[in-house]
């Protein structure tokens, strides 16, 4: 098996645009998986009382949109030369512009940086928009790729 490599030429590569339906049940499932118990994520009345229009998605929910909405990411990464079995997450940053509520969202990721050398890293920026086309979350994810043992 040849050793895969990434290159700086990947900077600027846009991934496919995709849509995802944020569902209350999926928000509940995610909250249960992370141990979140605040009633605003489970009960519409509690959410409204706290000033939300609908059940909000918790701060790291964007990851659900990215993985469930775009399962092709693994294949894309392999195609870009990434050995996906050796990926580790390095950084994640979210900027929240509007709450994520149940309903259709759309998203598109772009490779915004690559470093090669002692540590190979890639950074993807993803903007998530609501059904009105307004940007609601900006996510920036960096991964690094572990080198095979010498």
């Amino acid at each position, binding site marked *: 098996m040849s050793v895969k490599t990434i290159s700086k030429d990947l900077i600027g590569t846009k991934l496919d645009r995709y849509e995802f339906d944020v569902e209350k049940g*999926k928000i509940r*499932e*995610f909250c*249960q*998986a*992370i*141990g*979140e118990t*605040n009633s*605003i994520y489970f009960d519409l009345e509690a959410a409204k009382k*706290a*000033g*939300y229009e609908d059940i*909000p998605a*918790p*701060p*790291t929910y964007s*990851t*659900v949109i*990215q*993985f*469930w909405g775009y*399962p092709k990411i*693994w294949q894309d990464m392999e195609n870009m030369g990434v050995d*996906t*079995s*050796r*990926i*580790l*997450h*390095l*950084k*994640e*940053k*979210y*900027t*929240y512009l509007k*709450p994520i509520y149940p309903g259709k969202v759309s998203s598109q990721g772009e490779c915004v940086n690559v470093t090669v050398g002692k540590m190979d890293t890639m950074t993807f920026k993803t903007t998530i928009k609501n059904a009105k086309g307004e940007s609601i979350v900006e996510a*920036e994810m960096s991964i690094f790729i*572990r080198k*095979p*043992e010498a």
Partner: protein
Amino acid sequence: MSKIDFDKLEVGYELPPLKTDAITHANLVRYAGASGDFNPIHNDPDFARKTGLDGTIAHGMYVMAQLGRLCTSWADQKQIREFGVTFKNMTKPGQKLTCTGKIKRKKEENGEKLITVSLEAADDSGEVKCSGEMIVVA
């Protein structure tokens, strides 16, 4: 409704910490299903060992989600403007996390009162797994 009073909070204030139980393999399988991140290094010990790890490791995003719980148990989620972390060490099943936060900076910018909170998730031995910051609009 704002839970945060800008004027009453001092730099150095520490958020009530959040402690998790020991993370189990089942937690990670469940997180994989909920998040959609099925990278087998998180759910298949044999696969993880083949890639040079000594067993499965927690999703970084599972650890970030614990810090997220710390943030939303303190601030109203609508007030959180930014939330970012760097992953420093791997979290393994069996480890417990303590998530802490401390006010690092207060500033007024373009008429907004902003509070920067530094965040950290560490295991019982004190090894930091993940650290970062959140910016809250007070």
